[in-house]
């Protein structure tokens, strides 16, 4: 069933656009070329961050990190292998993507760890980055309880990602 979500979404969007006499193809083309420039801006950061991630992995630091955090993670049913992803996710989006891609590759994209990593990536945001952008732009100096509340939301995300993958697959 979920296999039809994406094809149908693509079809209906284009069909609605045609119904409104919009140039569906031309608009998509424009968006696609914007996607290309987005890609150009994340490629350099992926190169730098994956360099560091590969070094961490080759040195054994990633395993050490998972090992050290595994008691806490097991308590909540979160796979300890995802520890590096959980730690980096609120801080940097590209770094999280790099770490997540490595987890999926290492443990298998359809493994429970690979799927959990994917759901974690898809359902959380770069919390600290978002907070600094918004408060910086709005000129707010006292953030009050925003950081604890946002980190709590992240924790719920990591916890639920592990739980949903266990029950849905």
């Amino acid at each position, binding site marked *: 069933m979920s296999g039809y979500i994406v094809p149908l979404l693509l079809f209906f969007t*284009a069909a609605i656009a045609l119904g409104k006499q919009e140039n569906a193809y031309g*608009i998509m083309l424009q*968006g696609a070329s914007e996607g290309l420039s987005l890609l150009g801006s994340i490629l350099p950061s*992926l190169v730098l961050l994956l360099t560091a991630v590969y070094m961490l992995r080759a040195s054994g*630091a990633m395993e050490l990190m998972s090992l050290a955090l595994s008691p806490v993670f097991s308590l909540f049913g979160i796979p300890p292998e995802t520890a590096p992803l959980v730690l980096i996710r609120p801080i940097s989006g590209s770094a999280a993507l790099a770490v997540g891609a490595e987890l999926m590759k290492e443990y298998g994209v359809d493994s429970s760890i690979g799927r959990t990593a994917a759901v974690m990536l*898809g359902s959380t945001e*770069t919390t600290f980055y978002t907070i600094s*952008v918004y408060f910086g732009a709005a000129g707010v100096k006292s953030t009050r309880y925003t950081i604890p509340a*946002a980190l709590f939301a992240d924790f719920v995300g990591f916890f639920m990602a592990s739980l949903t993958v266990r029950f849905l697959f």
Partner: protein
Amino acid sequence: MVLSWIWTLMVLLSILCALFQGTGGALAGAAMQGAQAGVTLAISMAGSICLWSGAGKLMERVGITAMLSRLLRPLLHRVFPSTKKDPILAGNLSANICANFLGLGNAATPMGIRAAKGMNKDGAATNELCRLIVLNTASIQLIPANVAAVRGSLGCAAPFDILPAVWITSLLSAGLGVAAAWLLGKVWPK
């Protein structure tokens, strides 16, 4: 600036760890492989990212964003009561949430910031601003295109089979996050 620290720390940590565990021989090679992996990952995601940027733009143009914000109105009034009196704020807020929902992060941020500016009172975050930011850090997304792109690039036959799990997870994390913010707002000093 934060990333400069993180990157340097990551490299330092791997050197220390390698010294400790005697894995130093592999370190330089790993650095080169990692750099190449960055290019490979970016290129293998290219198709998906371009496709979804295109589809997202089309969804915005044909008015799916406007349709969603109409559906969102009642919920918006509950979480952000001041939108009842301020239609411009309401417009910015719902545009922000809908753009996030469609995965148009670049379009979402400016509208969110415009809404945030209207909520700032003497340099301290109001309860509504805190809730807005928690909502933005919890990302409710219809199609997590980047993740699906990575999965597809690794040879996954059904990269979108995680969608129901992603939806349940992000709805709950956003919902509970906003609930936590609401509770904290009752007790936290102004």
